[in-house]
C-alpha cells in the first residue's frame, strides 16, 4: 500500500496510545500478521465509537479523532482495569 502521509500516521499513533490506555488494545509487536493487528485495532475503534455514541465505522474519522483528543479521566472505559 502507499506510505500513509505523516498526519495520518500521527493520528494512527495517537489513536493506538489512546486505545491502549482506555480500551485494552494490545498491539502484538512481533505479530507476523500485520492484517491481524489492524483488524484488532479496528475492533477497538468500533468499541470506542459505540461507547461514545459515534457512528460505528471502525475508521479513524474526524469525529472519532476529536473525541479521542478531549480532556478526560485516566481510567479505562472497559473492564480490563488492573
Amino acid at each position, binding site marked *: 500500500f502507499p506510505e500513509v502521509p505523516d498526519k495520518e500516521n500521527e493520528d494512527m499513533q495517537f489513536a493506538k496510545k489512546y486505545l491502549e*490506555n*482506555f480500551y485494552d488494545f494490545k498491539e502484538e509487536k512481533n505479530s507476523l500478521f500485520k492484517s491481524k493487528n489492524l483488524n484488532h485495532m479496528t475492533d477497538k475503534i468500533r468499541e470506542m465509537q*459505540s*461507547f*461514545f*455514541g459515534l457512528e460505528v465505522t471502525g475508521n479513524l474519522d474526524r469525529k472519532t479523532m476529536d*473525541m479521542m*483528543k*478531549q*480532556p*478526560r*479521566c*485516566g*481510567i*479505562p*472505559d472497559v*473492564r480490563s*482495569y488492573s
Partner: protein
Amino acid sequence: TFPQSPRWRREDVTYRILNYTPDMLQADVEEAIAKAFQLWSSVTPLRFTRLYSGQADIMISFANGFHGDFYSFDGPGGTLAHAYPPGNGIGGDAHFDEDENWTKFATSSGYNLFLVAAHELGHSLGLGHSNVLGALMYPIYMPQDIRSYRLPQDDIDGIQALYGPPRETPALPTEAYPPQETTEMTSAETPTEMSPREEPTEITPSKTPTRPKDCDPHLTFDAITTLRGETLFFKGSYVWRKSPYFSDIEHDTISSFWPSLADGFDAAYEVDKRDRVLFFKDNKYWAVSGYSIESGFPKPIQNLGFPTSVRKIDAAVYDQNTKKTYFFVGSIYWSFNENTQSMERGYPRKIAADFQGIGHKVDAALQKNGLFYFFHGSNQYEVDIKSKKLIRVLKSNSWFNC
C-alpha cells in the same frame, strides 16, 4: 462498577489531602473536595471524615508525569486525573495531574476541581465510567455551571446500586477536628491556618416528585423534540432519551444537559439542518446547539411574531418538507417560515380545521420518519404530514417499548 464491584465495606470512609496545587488557594481546594464528597454522601449512607495525618482510605494528591504508579500523567490536556477502586494501599486513592490548570470556577481557561474531583471520587467509591452523555461518570470533561450542580440520575442509580440510598438525614462530611493523631504533618499538608470548620452547603438531590414509570399508561409529556437523531421526551425536570444507538431508554434530568433550564419546558422543536433546538417556557424561548445555549437568549416569544395576548405556547413541531414550524396554542395554530423567520399570512387557524381528528389542545408535537405525532394527555395521534389525515391513535409512551 469495576470487575467484582469492589466497594467500601463500612459507611465511614476517611480521606486525606496529601498536598495542594499552586493553582488555587488551599481553602478552595479543600472546599472543592469537601463538596465533591457531599455529592456522594447526599445520596448514600456513606460518611466521609477528613484526616490530617496517617493512612486514610482515600489519599488525594497532585502530581505530574511519572508519580509512582503505572499510570503516568501526560502533561497539559489529555488525561486530567485518575483514581483507584476501593481497596487497600493505593485502592481508593485519587491523583490529579499538576500539569493542568486547576480552578474553582467553571471557565474554559482551566479545569474545575470540584467537577473532576467528584468524578474521580466516584471511582474511589467503586464506580466505573458511564456512556450516558451528561452523567458525572462520563469519561470526557464537560465544563458546566456548578453553582446548582445536582448529581445526574445515572450516577445516583450507579452509586446506590453499590451502597443503597441515604439514611433519613444525608450524612455530612465530618472532619477529625482537631486532627486525631499528633504525628508530624508534612509541610505540604500543614494548612496555612486551621481554617474554621465550614458548614458545608448542603447539596440536596432534586426535590421534584419522583419520575413516572416509563410504561405508566397515564404518562403525559410537556414537550418532545428530536436532537441529532435522538428523541427527547420532557416532563417536569425529567428527560427520557431515546437513541438509535442504544436499545434502552435513558433517564436523565434537564439540569444534566442544560443546568440553567432545569425547570422544564412547554414546547421544543429541532431545526435539524441548523443543528438547533428551540425550547419554550412561558413567554420566553432559548436556542441551543448540543449542550450550549446560544448567547442572547432567552428572548420573548413575541420576537417570533406572536401577539402579546399569547403568554405561552403548548407545542411546536418543524416540518422538514415545507421548512415551516407549526406552533400550537389552545385550539389554534400558527405556521412560521424558518427561511424568512416570520409568521405566515392567514394564521392563526383552527387546529381541528386542518388536522383531521385533532380537535383539542396539543401538549407536545413530534416529527419523525415523515409523520407528525400530536400528544394530548396519555394519547398520541399519528398524522400524515402531507394529507394531514389521522392515521392511528397510540399511547403517549409507545416509544418506550412497553
